[in-house]
């Protein structure tokens, strides 16, 4: 429903949602991302993999300018979403982040009710004009987040009282409620148990229908399970980027191969 103006069949794997060219990120004196260029496709799950500290999360946080909130971080290079430079001076990061939602490593529900957690985004962006609208948006988001059935009877209960997996799905629902076009996920399952992980992965696969999803993960199995495209990062460099099947079965770069076979990591 979010892309009603585009006929379903026009959405092909060739639609580029995000283009990044020559991106560099510095934290103080540390050069965290070194000249990375990547094209992210729409309606696709793209996975960033690599050993910890390789910069994949940092790179992810460039897409919604979350790095702005860190004083020492400097981002250079060109990142375009739908052809618009997101580091353009005229861009308000607030508007950008409404368009590019994010889900974090640790579930971070606000210390508010489940309802208010989800309603927070629509409220600040003025997406609802009446209470009924808001109820509707909240319900849709919770359904989309595959958690509606579990919480529909206790919407006023605090979000912090849910289990870890439920909390993370709540956070995903919260991100969806602002009607984004891109969803960034920073190791969304790393704090979850295997069952909850399964549920979240299933949800990610679902979300691919409507969004361009970028997921950072340190689990190769997860990347293989949920993504169509995979980028492998090592020490701030993008080593290899391609179809997930290709990367896992026939890596071009020896470093990728070593990582996948477990020799580095």
């Amino acid at each position, binding site marked *: 429903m979010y892309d009603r103006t585009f006929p379903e069949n026009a959405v092909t794997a060739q639609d580029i949602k995000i283009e990044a060219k020559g991106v560099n990120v510095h934290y103080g004196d540390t050069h965290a991302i070194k000249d990375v260029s990547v094209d992210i496709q729409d309606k696709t799950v793209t996975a960033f993999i690599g050993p910890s500290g390789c910069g994949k999360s940092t790179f992810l946080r460039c897409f*919604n300018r*979350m790095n702005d*909130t860190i*004083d020492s971080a400097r981002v250079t290079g060109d990142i375009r979403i739908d052809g618009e430079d997101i580091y353009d001076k005229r861009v308000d990061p*607030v*508007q*950008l*982040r*409404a*368009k590019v*939602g*994010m*889900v*974090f490593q*640790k579930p*971070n*529900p*606000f*210390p*508010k009710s489940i309802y208010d957690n989800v309603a*927070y*985004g629509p409220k*600040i*962006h003025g997406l609802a004009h009446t209470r009924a609208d808001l109820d509707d948006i909240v319900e849709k988001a919770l359904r989309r987040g595959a958690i509606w059935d579990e919480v529909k009877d206790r919407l006023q209960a605090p979000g912090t009282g849910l289990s870890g997996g439920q909390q993370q799905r709540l*956070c995903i629902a*919260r*991100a969806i409620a*602002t009607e984004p076009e891109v969803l960034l996920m920073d190791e969304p399952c790393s704090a979850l148990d295997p069952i909850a992980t399964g549920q979240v992965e299933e949800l990610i696969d679902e979300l691919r229908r409507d969004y361009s999803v970028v997921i950072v993960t340190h689990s190769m199995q997860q990347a293989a399970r949920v993504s169509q495209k995979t980028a492998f990062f090592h020490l701030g460099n993008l080593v290899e980027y391609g179809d997930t099947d290709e990367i896992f079965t026939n890596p071009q770069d020896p470093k990728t191969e070593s990582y996948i076979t477990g020799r580095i990591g």
Partner: protein
Amino acid sequence: MPFYWTLATILGLAALGFFLGRHRAVASVGGERRKLHSLRKYYGINVAMKTLTPALGLLVVWLIAQPVIVEWRVSDLVAGTDVADTRVQTLVMVDVRRVANGLDTAVAAGVLSEADAASLTADSGTIRDTLGDAGVALGSDVSAPVLAAAQRYRTLSARADLTRTVAVLAVALLGLGWSLRETDGDFRARNVVEQGVRGLLIGAACIAILTTLGIVLSLVFNTIEFFRIYPASEFFFSTTWSPSFGGGSQLGILPLLWGTMYISLIALAVAVPIGLLAAIYLSEYASKRVRSVAKPALEILAGIPTIVYGLFALLTVGPMLMKVFGDGGLGWMQAGTAVMTAGLVMGIMLIPFVSSLSDDIINAVPQAMRDGSYGLGATQSETIRHVIIPAALPGIVGAILLAASRAIGETMIVVLGAGAAARISGNPFEAMTTVTAKIVSQLTGDADFSSPEALVAFALGMTLFVLTLGLNVLALYIVRRFREQYE
């Protein structure tokens, strides 16, 4: 033997014990120090410790108990005068002590011989002059029972002093002998000494309990004393405060509580918004440079003594307010000292208190909350208002309660800046007074400590203590609950 000599002697014995113990330990293993269980100094310390501690303990207990017992023993001599009233008896005992001390001084100065002092009688009528010669001024003539009591007091004290010296020295020697006997190479001196040190540490930690106990006891006893001579119901429910040292005082706490609350309220109305907003700005917005200047600058306000704020209220803020609200301006204010003056200045004093507490609380809200909100496209102020403040609210409430407790207990600002009139009025430009200010004025006058006008200060202190303690306990509880939530 006077007190200082006793003390010096047991210290000397302990020092002697140290060397003896060390020597004995080494001798017991035939000079082969490796055979000792502990380093040799521990054997010395063990002996010194066991010589000193019991003797010192006895000395302290004795010093505290002796006057009480001696007074109790002489009290029957003055019993005839006026025992019906414990207050009067306390006064008589003060006289007895003063005369006894006077006689001591007179003997020391050589005006009286020891025998004269003991045989002096009241009808010789010259006691006052005699003591006057020795430089001891007595307020009134000495009555016979008082003189007799004073003489008995002296003999008893002298006897007790002697016994004390003997007993303390005996205990010290006993400790020395016993600990020397147990000293040999296998003796675990270090463990024993460490036990002793541990005891010392526990003792130091218990001083906190003793302090609280001291506060509670001194408040409770005097408050009970006060309520014995002044009805509690009138103290708590009367709306008039007019102490008169001639008697017939009306001592209702309500006007004082009203003044306290009113001033505190104004102080909080100044300090909370400014302190909170400053904390928010410093922790969420300010650049490192601004923070490194503004934060210490605000903390200077916290380091300035309250007497300075008091003077500031009296001499700067009061006259300043008078210019605007006084006769020359709006005409609402009669004098510079008023609720508004004290409240404003107290508010300034509390700004850094509120801001540094809130700063801690805001920083305790996890970064993940902020990230979550920014990730949804919230602006910084939306994040602060809708996420951080609600999350930090319990902690902020705790901080405000702590600030309120500070305001209620503040003394110097209200003593100098609020005026002295006890009244219940809604006009913030009128002078009012507070519980703390009245504690000061009731205890710094010339009233004797057993009059209701002085004792009421203890009841006021008790009220203040209970009030602030309650607020603190509540605040600490709330803050702890808040912190646990994010741990």
